[in-house]
């Protein structure tokens, strides 16, 4: 049986597709976007995270790390010594069956609202066998959506597409070099998958995280709109950058140091899309 690594399961996610949804976050991502808001989703390996809310700063967790490894770090065993129970492992192994059983418990509510499950990440397409097996097991059980960067081989992308009902597809940057610089990979395969998706007739929504000075230029947004029009896409969702983005870095022991100035409000330019006949929704 296939196993997957899940770093979080969120009930009642309201912006991850139609209706009330449960979002399953699969761990590991081939991209490294400078503005990534779930740093705990980047690595494929399980890691320990500490919620900052309510922390007594007693350092019991760190002391445990020193005791066991000689390093001032949070280790697996730290979870059991936190008096506030604030430490958890991000990255639990799930079998397809375990995950499906869990999701089915909420199926009635999800279905009644016209919702279902959304697989997100990290990059869900990076665990293709597990994802596909889950999607097949949920066929006819609930509506299945995929939230993706689009970064995967077209063969895998097409296979996943066949077994799902809806896509939320990010178009971050049109310039391949800039994409490489800010996201760690070129966008060639992303654009190719986008064309496949648009041509398939599958229901999907295009999303753009609008990052100040990075991709909110007229040049990039015009190129995006033109590309969408070329693929006959008529709707886009803009997700303006929020300053809270960096809030999860501390709890994973990472530093958030974007090169762009996050105090500048992102420029949304809805008119650019409207000029291309694309309806804009801002989240």
């Amino acid at each position, binding site marked *: 049986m296939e196993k997957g690594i899940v770093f979080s399961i969120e009930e009642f996610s309201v912006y991850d597709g139609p209706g009330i949804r449960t979002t399953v976050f699969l761990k590991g991502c081939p991209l490294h976007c400078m503005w990534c808001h779930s740093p705990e989703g980047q690595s494929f390996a399980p890691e320990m995270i500490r919620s900052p809310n309510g922390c007594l700063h007693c350092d019991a967790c760190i002391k445990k790390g020193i005791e066991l490894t000689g390093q001032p770090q949070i280790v697996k065993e730290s979870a059991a010594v936190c008096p506030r*129970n604030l430490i958890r492992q991000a990255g639990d192994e799930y079998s397809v069956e375990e995950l499906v059983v869990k999701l089915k418990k909420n199926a009635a509510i999800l279905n009644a609202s016209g919702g279902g499950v959304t697989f997100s990440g990290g990059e869900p397409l990076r665990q293709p066998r597990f994802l596909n097996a889950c999607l097949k097991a949920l066929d006819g059980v609930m509506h299945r959506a995929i939230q993706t960067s689009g970064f995967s081989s077209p063969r895998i992308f097409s296979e996943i597409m066949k077994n799902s009902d809806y896509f939320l597809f990010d178009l971050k940057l049109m310039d391949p070099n800039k994409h490489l610089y800010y996201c760690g990979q070129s966008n060639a395969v992303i654009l190719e998958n986008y064309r496949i998706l648009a041509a398939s007739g599958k229901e999907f929504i295009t999303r753009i995280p609008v990052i100040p000075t990075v991709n909110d230029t007229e040049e990039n947004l015009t190129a995006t709109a033109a590309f969408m029009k070329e693929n006959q896409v008529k709707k886009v969702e803009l997700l303006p950058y929020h300053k809270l983005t960096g809030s999860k870095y501390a709890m994973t022991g990472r530093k958030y140091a974007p090169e762009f100035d996050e105090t500048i409000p992102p420029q949304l330019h809805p008119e650019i899309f409207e000029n291309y006949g694309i309806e804009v929704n801002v989240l």
Partner: protein
Amino acid sequence: MTEAVKQYLKILRDKEYRTKRVEGGFDISPLVENYEKHGLEIPVIRFQEMIKREIPILFENDPFGFHRYQKKMPTFVLKNGKESWRVLAGNITPNYARVIGQGFDRVRDEIHGYLQSADEEQTKFYHAILAHLDAITDLAERYRAEAEKQGCKALADALTRLPAQPAVTFYEACVFFTILTYSLRVCGNQHMTIGRFDQYMYPYYQHDIQSGKTEEELLETLELFFISLNFDTDIYHGIQQGDNGQSMVLGGFDRDGNSMFNELSKLCMEASLELKLIDPKINLRCGKKTPQWLFDYATKMTKQGLGFPQYCNDDIAVPGLVALGYDYEDALNYTVAACWEYIIPNCSFDVPNIQTMDFPFVINRAIHAHLADAKTFDELMQFVKQAVREECDVIIDRANNSRHVSIPFLSLLVDGCLEKGKDMTKWAAKYNCFGCHGAGIAPAADALAAIKSLVYEKQSLKKDELLAALDADFKGYSALQNELLNCPKMGNNDDFVDDIANELMAEFSGYLNKKPNNRGGFWRAGTGSAMEYVRLAKKCPATADGRNAWEPYGSSFSPAITTKLEGPLSVIQSFTKFDMTKIINGGPLTLEVHDSVFRNEEGEKKVAQLVRAFIELGGHQLQLNSINRDTLLDAQAHPEKYPNLIVRVWGWSGYFCELDPEYQNHIIKRTEFSV
């Protein structure tokens, strides 16, 4: 919002009106000739003397008046130097509509009719009411004169007829209501709820529409009235500022299942949305038949962050109340008390909050006494259930000792008293029941689940080790505490613990429900906690769910605040597994959702769908709060920046910055694992 509304709102917000008051509280002892404990003399003298000293306070174009001049009630000192008990009845929805529709003249006629054949006791009672009516009439006349002098034309005009004549217009009905509630408070009554305003005021609304008034004009009147409810609430609050009992219940269904949500109900919601004030506190009666648009609309209120509306499920409440022993018509007409206790308006003197079953404490005590002897978990549960039953007996005994001072004016507004010539404190109302809260059901079930899992199933925890850890408040046992905190918790849709909670509720309600009280009424078990989730919790030592000593429970029917929740879908399923018709005294599930879900209409609609899901699952009551942890923390640090930040506390909404820090902290703590 019209100019008049803005102006009245400004007067309220400036709080300058409070500077016009005097302290009051003078001693009426020398005036009392024939002191009789719980008798009628004290209430009458106190009311007369208080009203006599009230001075009309009116602001520019004041549409309602009847603001309090004296802050304190008169005092009465007994011969032994003790001050006489001043707490009267509360959590009652009086029959305002009857008196508003009659006028004092007809009430007096009715009383004079009864006096023809009254005995001595009855005669005293009737004269006490007449004395109240005379005092109010006198003050109303002084208000009329002052209103005329100051150019408050509408009010002066209304007071030429009121309160002697019945109200005719919607505005007059609201003025009459103001006179009645003002008078009730001068009597010392607290937590007089507004009840089904949209039903009993509907004839006046219709009258105005038929005589050519527009909806906008009525909205203005309604908004002015709503603003007036927010004056003087600093004088008559309960435990905390904001806890003043002005709950309004909208909608519901009639006996044929038709919706009673009417144009006035909608207007009330509109007014509340526009004004963003903590009073009146909006409750919405709903059920499976409630149309989705109404949930959508109500969610706009939740979005505002006032904690309104609180949802009550007719499909559960009505059959639950009937099963307890209320007549069907009365059950259909239910309202809620100051917080959420289901009460019957007009004809009851129920005390729905007379006692509290402190589940974590009672169960913790049973665990300490019997864990060593219990060979199996089932055996332990038998001991626990016995402890619940024994506590019920203690509760019944304690409640039987409570007494009330006579409250003749409120009795006028409770059906049955006038006809019988008897004060409601002599049980002249149709219903005289007792309600018992059930605080901390979730942490109590969690504690038992942890024991079931670690002590009996995995056998990884020794009984004496657990007891020692509890005695030490987990000092030196942090690994064990952590393990207990990670056992199955109610709220995560896990039958392992939810089944235990159901057993506790079944035992509590099965034993207590319908037991007779000493007033001819019966007992009703509930799921509420009122302030006890803080107050009683402060006396409860460490518990086996991993909770430290003296730490609070969740408010009312909610997960423990230390529970890592899977999310709201699991929570609503956990808290609807029990047949809630069987435990219907009241006490809502409280759900916090992060305010980011309200970013657009799509998110709002999904929140509304969540509410529907809860109702369809058979939940009995729901409080839904929109919360942003960062805002709350900032408000705690910089209260001056957030004078109007409103939060839901335990059964009512209050200004965050006016709450005691422990209640502020509880709300912040609730957001730690919230979604």
